[in-house]
């Protein structure tokens, strides 16, 4: 099988409009989550990208009035990634778009409701950059972003494409917020993953993108060495009590990577900060013998950015490898799960080679992808 690498990458979030700015904000323990008074029937914590800042940045490359907020975030992210990539768009380049809800705000906005169809979102992005192949759209709940990396890797390994640009994004909308409220899942304060004092999730806006290729000349390249995406077969919304699907996904990824759990230097967990999710992850990591591995959830910085989260958090993980830094799991104070976990309580420097990114979502879906830093 061919080696597949992630090269250029860009995060668009309230913490900044490129990956480096985002990672330096994380190093300073800054969070994008703030109190908002106008997004719901009552004040609510969320991580939201300012419209004006977004339009100012976007107006350098396009007309902000004809694109939705999500389209602008995704295009802005891809623009930067494409400009940094070592390959250009050919007829063997695939565009993969990952989103949970896409332009769902179009059901109740100035745009036509048809804009909510995901193929339209895919085409807007395709046309902006002149991609030559049909965009591939993945909408697999909250694993969409990280699953998109696995899909790109598999397509490149099997020669269906030469290289890929993957973009993931989701927005805070009244649609999703009201739904999570009906699930009594929204935290009354900024979310606190794995903490005993957590009371639920915060949600956030974000877009993230990466370039994926089999050909890199970087002296320190990030290789995707294994992946798995298995179902719990247990409940459509409740996380599995045994962590089954997540455990199976991790085992599948380790097997493909041909490494033992102790070779993993860092876990970028899903950590939504709901009681059942965090507990499920703790069980799965223990079953996979990863309980001693340093772990964080980045939801304290970004909130839960749905379909973007897995991709966004994988990018931060890549920068962790490159910078040899373990970033604090923001919001963590006292461990609030029944099994041991090694949560990163302070940002620390450490030699890192390999990390695993995991995510889980409604529908019982789970994904795990392992990344390795290779010197060449």
């Amino acid at each position: 099988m061919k080696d597949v690498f992630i090269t250029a990458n860009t995060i668009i979030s309230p913490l900044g409009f490129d990956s480096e700015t985002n990672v330096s904000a994380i190093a300073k323990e800054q969070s994008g989550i703030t109190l908002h008074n106008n997004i719901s029937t009552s004040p609510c914590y969320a991580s939201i990208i300012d419209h004006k800042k977004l339009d100012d940045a976007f107006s350098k490359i396009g007309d902000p009035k004809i694109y939705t907020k999500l389209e602008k975030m995704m295009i802005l992210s891809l623009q930067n990634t494409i400009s940094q990539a070592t390959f250009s768009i050919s007829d063997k380049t695939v565009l993969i778009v990952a989103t949970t809800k896409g332009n769902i705000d179009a059901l109740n906005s100035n745009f036509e409701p048809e804009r909510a169809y995901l193929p339209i979102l895919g085409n807007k992005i395709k046309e902006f950059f002149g991609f030559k192949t049909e965009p591939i759209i993945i909408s697999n709940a909250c694993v969409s972003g990280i699953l998109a990396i696995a899909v790109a890797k598999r397509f490149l390994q099997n020669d269906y494409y030469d290289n890929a640009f993957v973009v993931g994004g989701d927005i805070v909308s009244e649609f999703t917020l009201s739904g999570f409220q009906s699930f009594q899942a929204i935290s009354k304060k900024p979310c606190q993953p794995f903490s005993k004092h957590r009371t639920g999730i915060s949600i956030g806006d974000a877009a993230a993108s990466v370039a994926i290729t089999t050909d890199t000349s970087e002296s320190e390249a990030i290789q995707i060495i294994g992946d798995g995406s298995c179902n719990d077969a247990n409940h459509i919304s409740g996380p599995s009590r045994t962590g089954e699907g997540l455990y199976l996904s991790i085992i599948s990824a380790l097997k493909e990577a041909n490494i033992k759990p102790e070779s993993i230097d860092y876990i970028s967990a899903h950590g939504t900060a709901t009681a059942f999710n965090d507990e499920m992850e703790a069980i799965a990591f223990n079953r996979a013998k990863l309980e001693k591995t340093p772990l964080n959830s980045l939801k304290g910085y970004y909130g839960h950015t749905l379909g973007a989260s897995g991709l966004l958090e994988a990018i931060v993980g890549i920068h962790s490898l490159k910078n040899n830094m373990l970033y604090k799991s923001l919001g963590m104070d006292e461990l609030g799960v029944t099994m041991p976990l090694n949560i990163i309580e302070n940002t620390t420097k450490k030699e890192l080679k390999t990390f695993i990114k995991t995510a889980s979502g409604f529908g019982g879906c789970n994904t795990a992808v392992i990344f390795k830093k290779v010197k060449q």
Partner: protein
Amino acid sequence: MKKQLKTIAYCRINNNTISINGKSIITKDKDLSFSDFAKQIYKEKQLAYPKFFKMDNLCKLAFLTSEFLFEAAKLDSEIIKHTGIVLSNRASSLDTDRKHQDTINDKDNYFPSPAVFVYTLANIMIGEISIRHQIKGENAFFVSEKFNETLIEHYASSLIINRKSSHILCGWVDVDNNNYDAFMYLVAEKGSYNYSKEIIKNIYTQN
């Protein structure tokens, strides 16, 4: 490295007709709504799975299609457990998304329903099929303008070549307002029918 795949069985449900491996087995009155059609089929098949009635139309359609398909495929339960599921459609979960949106449009009558919201994700249908048959294999849900047999072939082949799953449940399940269409097929290295994306496309377009 490419592998020659075979189709084990295929099932189509549209226009209130169910066909297996190209033969129509059940046809109901065309004027019947999808919900009524689905309910009749459930009763006739004596499925005894009360969760069915909690599902939205998209999941009901996916559930029924997979019931007929697995029945025809007669797979060993160990194989079913590790089957990969790769489904796709055009409208994602918009049919149910609109229902959720209706519950929040009026601020004086603002009661979003958790039982509706949970179905505002198209991949929930993969979850429902997985729960029913205890499938813990690979999952992916794709959205495309039309049924994209090439995309599904690429992904199903990748899963088989990368040794993630030996059998893949593939298909297209779309529900949008009053229109619905489902087509599912099981592929593996051994099976009764020749497989190519052209054959699959032909089967899909001719029915």
